[in-house]
């Protein structure tokens, strides 16, 4: 019931294996099983947003518009998956937004300064990003301070370093172009290319996003680590008492966020050929919003990767839908805020209904 187990096969299984308990299980209606899924609130919300903009915005339903919406969703969704996993594990990461920029800066500056193949920079960036994630997790598990404080600290330090190092090394707030460096085109193909399907252009980040959602769901629902993530978020002391490696799980979750930041950062870099060092501030909240809209409990222990994807999709539809409807984009944040409140209320209500003992 925690997340996304398919209701159908379960019931069949129970029928086959425990005829004794059969007649009582039938009392749990399929509707109730559906209500118990963490994504439900967000799916309802996503449908509402979709219908709304389909009616109000001309051209929202065009294939090219949907491709734009999916692209906007994917740039948030790539980070929303690991951030959702981290929230299920009971922690926040406020440094996630600027870590994306850091990751892009490291990659670009390393390649440029060392005149190395861009792939070397990409690799170094991965290692450094993972190290920063591990640092967050290590500080959290060692000091036992709230993750809010720890990652707020990392957030500010990264902000400063992004600007400071870029000015120190390149003299301006943006990095030098690496477009003429070896391996640039192949790296761009991996991180920022466009795939044409049926005459419509899709950004490759959509594939990265889908892959991460699949990977996140697999980890959460079908692996031992997934069980541990739910447990450390739901009741850390109980998890520790039955032998779950709590610290390792949390450090791993922070490294997962860092991995997502690395993919996003490389996309940021290879979409163009240089990076603005001030970018990314504020995005960490959007990732958290996507995860929460998708059904993640802010207190941990509950949520899903698929939900975070639906949350990201709502974000993409709203941000682009407002443009297609030719409204003033200033209204976007109002919609996002309203959506967050509604989704959270709906989720709370749904969960109460689902958990009520029969």
């Amino acid at each position, binding site marked *: 019931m925690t997340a996304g187990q398919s209701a159908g096969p379960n019931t069949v299984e*129970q029928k086959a294996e425990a005829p004794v308990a059969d007649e009582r299980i039938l009392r749990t209606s399929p509707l109730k099983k559906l209500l118990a899924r963490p994504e439900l609130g967000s799916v309802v919300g996503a449908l509402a947003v979709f219908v709304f903009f389909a009616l109000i915005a001309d051209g929202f339903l065009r294939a090219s518009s949907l491709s734009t919406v999916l692209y906007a969703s994917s740039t948030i969704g790539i980070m929303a998956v690991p951030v959702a996993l981290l929230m299920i594990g009971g922690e926040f990461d406020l440094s996630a937004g600027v870590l994306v920029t850091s990751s892009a800066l490291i990659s670009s500056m390393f390649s440029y300064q060392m005149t190395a193949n861009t792939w070397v920079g990409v690799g170094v960036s991965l290692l450094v990003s993972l190290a920063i994630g591990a640092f967050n997790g290590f500080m959290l598990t060692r000091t036992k301070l709230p993750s809010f404080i720890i990652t707020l600290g990392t957030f500010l330090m990264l902000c400063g370093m992004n600007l400071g190092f870029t000015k120190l090394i390149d003299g301006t707030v943006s990095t030098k172009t690496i477009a003429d460096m070896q391996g640039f085109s192949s790296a761009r193909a991996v991180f920022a290319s466009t795939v044409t399907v049926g005459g419509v252009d899709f950004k490759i980040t959509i594939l990265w996003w889908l892959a991460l959602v699949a990977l996140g769901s697999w980890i959460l629902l079908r*692996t031992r680590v997934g069980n*541990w993530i739910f447990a450390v978020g*739901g009741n850390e002391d109980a998890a520790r008492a039955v032998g779950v490696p709590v610290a390792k799980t949390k450090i791993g979750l922070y490294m997962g966020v860092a991995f997502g930041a690395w993919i996003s950062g490389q996309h940021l870099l290879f979409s163009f050929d240089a990076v603005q060092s001030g970018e990314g501030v504020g995005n960490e909240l959007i990732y958290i919003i996507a995860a929460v809209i998708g059904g993640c409990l802010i207190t941990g222990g509950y949520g899903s990767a698929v939900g975070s994807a639906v949350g990201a999709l709502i974000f993409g539809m709203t941000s682009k839908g407002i443009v297609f409807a030719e409204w003033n984009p200033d209204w976007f944040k109002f919609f996002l805020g309203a959506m967050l409140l509604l989704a959270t209320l709906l989720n709370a209500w749904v969960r109460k209904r689902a958990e009520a003992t029969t």
Partner: protein
Amino acid sequence: MTDGMTDETTPTATTAAPALVELSCVGKHYGNVRALDGVSLQVHAGEITCVLGDNGAGKSTLIKMIAGLHQHDGGTLSIEGEETRLASPREALDRGIATVYQDLAVVPLMPVWRNFFLGSEPRKGTGPFKRLDTALMRRTTREALLRMGIDLRDVDQPIGTLSGGERQCVAIARAVHFGAKVLVLDEPTAALGVKQSGVVLKYVAAARDEGLGVVLITHNPHHAYLVGDRFVLLRRGTMVGNHTRDEITLDELTAQMAGGSDLDVLRHELQRD
């Protein structure tokens, strides 16, 4: 107990075989605070050792030492006759000591079957496709609970939807299933009604009948006397009594537990003129 199966040692089985867990004169200090001092206790297979004491008597400290959460400062801790120190809860678990805590035994939002296998999840497949054997987990959970006499509607429901007593029972069934030799129960009947307490005690007895050594922490002498074979009384961090069942009656136990003379003083104070 297995040693006790041979004919000539049967009468003295419990004394001949080394105790599953034996504490002798253990102590624990937190800084300059003495939490526990000079406590001895034996846990034998198929027996229930009750630890009784009021709030602050040192019961929690005692189980934390047996569970591997804290290390003892003085005295010795032996497991099956071998003196040892437990470094972590994981080590205690690996040596067959399972602890069921009063309020942190389970993760409320997780389904019963995920809780049941938490920390010891069975897997199938190889390499990156190694995954939880969810069918086996669900089936085993239902079977293990049935074996303890717990008939659950649906193992997919969040364990938080079960009653307090049912949750304790699931935790006990889990310990039994994973082959624990010693089961430590932290106030399993506290905060439960009379009927629910009775149900939990029934499962405690069922665990004993499965051959486990049970440590039952409680501040209720009536519950303790219903199932206990040995009674250790704690007060203000020291041991004030260590009896086997044939040495003591329920009334004596209750009196000692309440701190006999303290009770007289209290009666005197509360007496109306």
